[in-house]
């Protein structure tokens, strides 16, 4: 009998599989726990195994050189690095500054990048709205030199997209 991963008591009747790239994560749940987590619902949100993954990204996997030293506490919300490592959640926007060095590493581990290239809030749009293609080209060369091929492919696609967009807007289309 397989026992429920959540309560550890009841027999598991549900297997939840999450596939990320080639990695399968499996969760065995009993009926009660499944219902509690909204799993009895066809469209219900499934519990995020990401939380647990982040905890993995923190702690052991962050090289000591990249980790913030000492027991850091965010002045904005009062959470400590230990709190963050335990829950996988940040307490406020200022945490991103407080734990900046750790986050740069963690975000890179999660997303393969730690630099936002998407939309900006309306109030911040304007000159910066259109990224500098020349700068992106330099980043592309750097990525190739560092053999970061995924990042390079991403930048290449972005540059192509931007060039097509600009080509189109020059001809007055949308």
């Amino acid at each position, binding site marked *: 009998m397989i026992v429920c991963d959540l309560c550890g008591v009841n027999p598991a009747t549900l297997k939840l599989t999450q596939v990320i790239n080639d990695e399968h994560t499996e969760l065995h749940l009993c009926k009660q726990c499944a219902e509690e987590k909204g799993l009895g619902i066809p469209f*219900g949100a499934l519990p995020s195994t990401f939380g647990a993954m982040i905890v993995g990204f923190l702690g052991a996997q962050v090289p000591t050189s990249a980790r913030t030293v000492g027991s850091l506490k965010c002045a904005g919300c009062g959470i400590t690095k230990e709190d963050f490592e335990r829950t996988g959640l940040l307490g*406020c*926007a200022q945490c991103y500054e407080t734990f900046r060095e750790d986050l740069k590493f963690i975000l890179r581990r999660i997303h393969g990048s*730690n630099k936002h290239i998407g*939309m900006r809030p309306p*109030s911040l749009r304007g000159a910066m709205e259109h990224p500098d293609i020349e700068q992106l080209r330099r980043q592309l060369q750097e990525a190739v030199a560092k053999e970061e091929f995924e990042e390079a492919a991403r930048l290449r696609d972005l540059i192509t997209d931007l060039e097509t967009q600009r080509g189109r807007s020059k001809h007055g289309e949308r």
Partner: protein
Amino acid sequence: MGSDEEDKEAQARTGANAAVAVLEGRLCAWLDGSGPEADIIITSRVRLARNLQGLRFPGAAPAEERESVCSQVAAAIAASRALPQSLHLRLDELSALDRRFLMERRLVSPQSAERPEHAAVFADLAQTLAVMVNEEDHLRLQAIASGLQIEEAWEAVRTLDDELGERLDYAFSEQFGYLTACPTNTGTGMRVSIFAHLPALALLEEVDKALKEFAGSEITVRGFYGEGSRVQGNIFQISNQLTLGRAEKAIIKRVRGIAERVVALEREARARLLHQRPLRVRDLVYRARALLQHAQLISSLELMNLLSAVRVGSELGLLPPIPRRRLNELLVIALPAHLQKRAGKEMDNEERDAYRAQFVREYLGV
């Protein structure tokens, strides 16, 4: 949508309980089974996570800050054209059953249903657009469309985001983009999901093979299937895994590409199934119909199983056609809170399963 009568109805009633009453009489538009590829893709959803500058994220915020978020968002929505005729529901004014009802409508998350203090949701009457307040993040904006309509959902949620962004001070950083409570959402804060019904791939045991094809595609596939029985809903949620370092358009393009490929694989599998294993398919479909006709107790999970089989039977012409809309609707209205509200009383598991069996039989006319 948007007749004068609807307008009056929404405005005449106030308070969360009245709003729930309005929703009870109105099913979500995304269940109507319309849109491209709706035989396989049930819905498309785009969700954006946003937070307000200078206030702690909901999980770390004291009551007065959570309250401040509620009133700022309410004011922004009232002043914008983003959500005309919107319903405003305070979760702390609702019973656990009503919160569960909203969860079944996908208007609140299980987390919010469990932590309703100073949490709220705004939604249009069709329930295609919604703003959840004080869930894991201050705001979760979502748009849901039926069928494969990712771009339409994106356009709707982007417009809403722009309007609210004019009035709210979003927490944003040049380096990290939109700042969220969980680092897995940082950057665009965007999650694009499609819900695909893949019975033929499941029956041929080719789901894993299909998923392997998408390895490295930066997507997450979640499915749930029970031990012992292969068919249990067969509805898979496919969404983008990464939110940082990718532009919104690139994320949409990627999920759309996967969705189209999944549709092609499932179509091909259905054709092959009919050709190679006709007895197996017919047996499955007719058994499911027989159970729907005669079973006296049907659980939510079993119902999903049965609906999957009769859906495929209907789509493949093995059964007299059942309107897709009816099948979709049952995915929501046969859930526990919906059944109990319909029955007008709280019911235990067995009572619910009995009521469900009877209700579904009548609803489908099988």
